[in-house]
């Protein structure tokens, strides 16, 4: 038999809640609203008691019902006599009501109004600026110590990171730059073929890959691959108190953790950009030879004619700047990370977003700069 509820008046001011049957969470149980209704209509009730002799079995279902009744009684300043409840339930209710609910836990039950949220968000964004500048300052000082030879870091760490961001990135950089080279060549060729100028595919691809696309695509890949990894590594170290351990031992965590990461990416990015350019140009040649009937030799000749050292330099400089920005964003977010798994996830996401944002801004500025300089 599922739970049954009836209300009786023992005396005019004493409401007795009679419970019977099986009070299990899985059953459909009577609600405490009936009790509330009775209490509302009869304001002279001062005592609430129970009769639970007919309860066959119970679990948290009963306790939840009782908790609501207790709540109602507290609101109406009604004395509750738990005497008639099953022994176990009585003890559980005593446990549940032993510590009154904490009123001032500092948590807002409802979210603040829109204007306040906008204000808070703006303030935190405003504060993010100085934090970033502070980190930039620390990194600059650390590079200063590197130049003077007093920076504390392990060469073996640097080598490991170089291997990770350099050699291990080759497969994905190869794939992406090959495909980008293919796309540039194909799209360009379709247009150029209308004038019978397919041979200029070589110019388009070599210029595009060395000046812009090589650096940009490598930058985006590295932001997703390495920037995220840096943030996750440093963030986890933050959670694990490893960074505090560096600080208490008097090690500068910027020197130890950030410096080798930035250095590795700054050293490896130019090489990766050069490599991406070569792969992209090869992809262009593949399209030109197989689809547009240009001979390998012609394509090679045209590429050499169109290339200048300045194009290569422009790409390499861009790549180096992107590398610096990606490593900066990754390390910044990692060092700012809070002390929870959630925070590590946020730091990683933010590292990639910040990294790509930095790259796009730098790409625009550098393109305009080189354009103005006529390089």
């Amino acid at each position, binding site marked *: 038999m599922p739970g049954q509820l009836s209300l009786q008046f023992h005396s005019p001011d004493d409401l007795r809640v009679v419970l019977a049957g099986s009070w299990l969470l899985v059953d459909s149980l009577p609600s405490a609203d009936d009790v509330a209704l009775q209490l509302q209509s009869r304001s002279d009730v001062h005592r609430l008691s129970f009769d639970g002799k007919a309860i066959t079995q119970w679990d948290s279902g009963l306790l939840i019902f009782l908790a609501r009744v207790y709540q109602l009684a507290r609101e109406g300043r009604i004395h509750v006599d738990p005497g008639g409840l099953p022994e176990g339930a009585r003890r559980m209710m005593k446990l549940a009501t032993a510590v009154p609910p904490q009123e001032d836990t500092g948590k807002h039950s409802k979210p603040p109004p829109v204007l306040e949220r906008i204000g808070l968000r703006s303030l935190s964004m405003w504060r993010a600026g100085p934090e970033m500048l502070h980190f930039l300052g620390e990194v600059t000082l650390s590079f200063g110590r590197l130049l003077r030879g007093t920076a504390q870091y392990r060469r073996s760490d640097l080598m490991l990171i170089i291997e990770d961001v350099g050699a291990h990135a080759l497969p994905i950089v190869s794939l992406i730059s090959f495909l980008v080279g293919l796309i540039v060549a194909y799209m360009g060729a379709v247009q150029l073929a209308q004038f019978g100028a397919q041979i200029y595919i070589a110019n388009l691809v070599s210029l595009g890959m060395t000046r812009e696309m090589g650096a940009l695509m490598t930058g985006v890949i590295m932001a997703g691959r390495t920037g995220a990894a840096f943030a996750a590594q440093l963030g986890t170290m933050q959670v694990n108190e*490893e960074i505090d*351990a*560096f600080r*208490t*031992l*008097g090690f500068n965590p910027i020197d130890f953790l950030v410096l080798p990461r930035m250095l590795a990416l700054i050293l490896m990015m130019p090489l990766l950009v050069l490599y991406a350019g070569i792969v992209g140009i090869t992809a262009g040649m593949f399209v030109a030879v197989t689809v547009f009937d240009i001979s390998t030799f012609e394509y090679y000749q045209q590429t050499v004619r169109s290339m200048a050292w300045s194009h290569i330099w422009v790409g390499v400089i861009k790549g180096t700047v992107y590398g610096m920005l990606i490593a900066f964003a990754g390390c910044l977010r990692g060092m700012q990370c809070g002390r929870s798994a959630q925070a590590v996830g946020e730091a990683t996401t933010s590292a990639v977003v910040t990294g790509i944002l930095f790259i796009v801004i730098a790409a625009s500025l550098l393109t305009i700069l080189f354009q103005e300089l006529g390089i």
Partner: protein
Amino acid sequence: MKANGVQHKKDPGGHITVQDLTMMYGNFVIQHDLNFTIPRGDIFIIMGGSGCGKSTLLRHMIGLKAPARGRVLFDDISYWESSSAEQQRIKRSFGMSFQSGALWSSLTLAENVALPLGEYTDLTAADIAEVVSLKLSLVGLAGFEEFYPSEISGGMQKRAALARAIALDPEILFFDEPSAGLDPISSRRLDDLILELRDSLGTTIVVVTHELASIFTIGDNAVFLDAETRTMIAIGNPRTLRDGSPNPVVRQFLNRGEL
């Protein structure tokens, strides 16, 4: 246990002095007006209920967080008013065992212990390797030199962290919840080790804990931080406090809630 037996040279100023310390997170006061002195060679316990700011106090003492008000002095030198070179020198005398161990996860146990040695001493690689083996054997981890922190159990990680903390023979050792997550026997071994370090090397030891067994076994002196009033409400020998503290909150805590 000879926690009280050995008399150590004690200078009048105390090894560590906390003066009028107030700690805040943003605008939220965690603890205010803390005042106590830790003599040289003392084992000093910071105790109190969960969330009362014990670990935060420790983070202030080891220079990880700047106080909102007040000072922390080491041999009468105020840490936060010193130059950064002086701060480095003071920090060099610390060893710290973090709550989670905080071993550097990308390094083996041997490298973890060797890193401070390599950085701050002129020892040769061979000498360092010997010191590392000695420190690891002191905490019962001889033979685990080439293991990475993730390859050993939590209790072993804590002991390895202690080996790293004592690598440079520090004058002051800080422990954050040393026995949290340890079984009773490992926990007892750690207590014995702490006592042994104090007795044989005269190290001043500061322990954050709420393990009553540890508190009574090793503590010479203790401060009780209260979460309700957000300040210290008792200081003194924990056994004396247990039996005779005028404050019922402290007595209740030290008697596991029974008065």
